[in-house]
């Protein structure tokens, strides 16, 4: 189809637009609500070529219908057009569908994220030959019979060399079409993300929204890198429990905070379902950093040192700023692990605009 080229050119421009607006999308959550089955519908300003036009001081015009002066004009339905429309203003936004995978790719490009290095299991990653597109040159073994036949048929018909009664088609070199391929290295490995969140009273809706947005993009990127991605959710106050995704973002609990409870549950989940030799394990913990006691903090460090860190690829702690939290846990972690620990990433997310930096921090190491 000839249109294919034009649609692809258009999509390329759209890709650029999404990249330009990525920061806004990341921090606004507009996209999450529009997420369908592996597709995200992205609202973009309509791409228009500039022209000399009148500014809209005040919109006005002539209409047709019932009503007295002062009444609101009833909105008619769009008419069945005949394809000649398009000069009228009105639609100034458009929606484009993009796959989550492509979106993650754009995110990676924009944030300059490195490809994730698999946790020492290179042998599992596999080369895949992906056939895409058709070329005029290639080895005979990859000849695309159908396309070649069509080309030859077209040529013979156009030069009058084709008789329907004796439909003999002889392809010449120019008719031949070959499948082209690209080698893709796809890590075959599987990964699991375990999200943990503090739902104590000090975590407000805005804080949870930030966590939600961050994890949406984390998911998108990790899914882009792994064929098989599991996600598990743990919420905790003084006790921890595993929940589904919806509950994770919508529970409002209150009470004290014992972070160790979450780490213990996390340990249990890993032991039960995710042997670390086969899984890439990502741990994300979001909290406002207000732990109950120093003792509990010490217990957390022990849990991390003895089990969680050795078995996982990465432990990321995102501290969401809240009005009530002391933010002590972040300081404790920093003291314990220093700034340069291989597997621990500690980042403070001030507000929505900080999400972009958080993503860069969490994913920037390529682990």
């Amino acid at each position, binding site marked *: 189809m000839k249109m294919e080229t034009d649609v692809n050119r258009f999509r390329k421009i759209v890709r650029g637009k999404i990249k330009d607006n990525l920061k806004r999308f990341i921090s606004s959550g507009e996209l999450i609500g529009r997420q369908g089955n592996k597709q995200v519908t992205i609202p973009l300003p309509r791409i228009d070529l500039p022209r000399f036009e009148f500014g809209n001081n005040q919109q006005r015009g002539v209409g047709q219908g019932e009503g007295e002066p002062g009444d609101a004009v009833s909105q008619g339905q769009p*008419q*069945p057009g005949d394809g000649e429309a398009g000069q009228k203003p009105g639609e100034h936004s458009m929606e484009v569908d993009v796959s989550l995978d492509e979106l993650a790719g754009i995110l990676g490009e924009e944030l300059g994220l490195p490809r994730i290095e698999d946790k020492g299991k290179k042998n599992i990653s596999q080369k895949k030959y992906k056939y895409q597109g058709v070329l005029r040159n290639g080895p005979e073994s990859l000849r695309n019979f159908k396309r070649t036949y069509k080309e030859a048929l077209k040529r013979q018909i156009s030069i009058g060399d084709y008789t329907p009664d004796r439909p003999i088609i002889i392809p010449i070199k120019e008719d031949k079409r070959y499948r082209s391929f690209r080698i893709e290295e796809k890590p075959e490995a599987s990964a699991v993300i375990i999200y943990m969140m503090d739902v104590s009273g000090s975590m407000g809706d805005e804080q949870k929204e930030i966590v939600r947005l961050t994890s949406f993009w984390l998911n998108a990127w990790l899914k882009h890198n792994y064929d098989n991605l599991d996600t598990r959710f743990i919420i905790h106050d003084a006790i921890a429990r595993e929940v589904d995704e919806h509950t994770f973002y919508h529970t409002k609990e209150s009470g004290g905070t014992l972070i160790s409870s979450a780490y213990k549950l996390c340990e249990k989940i890993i032991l039960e379902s995710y042997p670390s030799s086969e899984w890439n394990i990502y741990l994300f913990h979001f909290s406002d950093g207000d732990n109950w006691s120093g003792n509990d903090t010490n217990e957390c460090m022990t849990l991390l040192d003895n089990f969680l860190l050795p078995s996982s690829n990465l432990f990321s702690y995102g501290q969401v700023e809240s009005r009530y939290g002391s933010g002590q846990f972040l300081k404790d972690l920093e003291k314990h692990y220093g700034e340069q620990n291989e597997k621990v990433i500690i980042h403070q997310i001030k507000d929505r605009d900080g999400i972009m930096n958080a993503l860069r921090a969490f994913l920037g190491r390529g682990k």
Partner: protein
Amino acid sequence: MVMDPRLTSDLTPELKDIVMEIESHAKNLGLDFFPTIFEMVDYQQMSEIAAYGGFPTRYPHWRFGMEYERIAKSYEYGLSLIYEMVINNDPCYAYLLRSNSLVDQKTVIAHVYGHCDFFKNNYCFSHTNRKTLDEMANHGSRVRRYIEEIGHDEVESFIDICLSLENLIDQHGPHIRREYKPKDKDNYDESLISPDKLPVPKLPSLRGYMEGYINPESYLKEQQAKVILEKEKEKKFPESPVRDVLKFLLDYAPLSSWQRDVLAIVREEAYYFAPQGQTKIMNEGWAVYWHSKILTQLVLKDSEVIDYCDHYAGVVQMSGQRLNPYKLGVELMRHIEKRWDRGQYGLEYTLCDDPLVRKNWNKSANKGMEKIFEVRKFHNDITFIDEFLDEDFCEEAKLFTWVQDRRSGQAIIHDRDFKTIKRELLDTMTNFGHPLIDVIDGNFRNRGELLLRHRHQGKDLKIDWAVETLKNIQKVWNRPVNIATVIESENKIIHFDGSEPRIEKGIQFE
């Protein structure tokens, strides 16, 4: 070999018969059209053809892809449906949507003959190339060749530039022979420096003593002033303002040959499509008039009438804020037919101001049919509205003006005053609702700068877009460019020299 009927664009035998039937009805009723070829397409093909403005063979450009996605998506969501596409060509090509019901197909076929007759006979289309299908394919292959030679990105972004200037054409240009031949003039013409030494034309006087009476001093002075004015004009470049900005750029901008050709292509296509914009209301009105006449009087079976009416109601529904050209067009056509049938024209009728007498006026002139054929030949939308949209019609058709409420953003009915409505309507249609812009000076400030003028008629330009457009013109002109306009009641010049756009103090035109 039997082909799967879904794979061909041929009509089914049943539809072929219907086409022949409707064609003969149309001919008998006096329509006069090019041979018309119908093709069956599915909705994807239809969306594709529509995205290309009717021509599947057009040059490659991303905006067609955007349009395609928009049309295809709105079809998938069930928001809109393109029933029919017809292109002005000899022969005319029309596309039928495969999924349409038989009644819809009949409607569309009759509708298409209305359009074809209009294309062939309306004066606006008289200068369009009737082999445009081939021409578009030509354009396509030329652009594709440039893409292969120069690169896709470069050619495409140049097309972007050209398209952003696409509306700077002279829509009446094809009908007028404007003389502005470049004169071979001597660069060192002394008279340009001292024009008062130019010879002044005198009236012939055979007798010397009459000289003072035939060519008195005052007359000579007048003549000399005229000569000097002419000479002054010559110094200007262009001598008089040029509406066809694209032509001016083609003639004088420093473009490489492929760029020149691409710009010429865009300009040619803009001129091809312009008449359709000029006659949208009339063209649709005419087509609806005929499809309804042919179908209801000659073609429809009893069992089909309800479906037809349902469809018809959809086509001519009122759409509130936006005028439906189908509805306005057909109603005004019928209004004209009725008036001329009843003899409601001429001085006597115009001067009559008794509403009752006017209403019951009937001289049985029966000139309606003759009149609408005349109208379809000699009018465009503007003259059509200007001449025939009268107070009676305005009331019957329930027209109103609306304004957007500043606070709520809602459109509010403003009033139903005939004069305001008509003025507003004509205003939005003038130059397709685009600003009037012409080239004033190709050597502005004596520095080879380009000066455009926006003829301000009450509405300001959209400044950010004007600046962006100016940037595109600068890329073509290669020297600083300016546009003189009015911003918030003050004369201003927007200037762009390739670095930062500036808004400067403007100049007053006479």
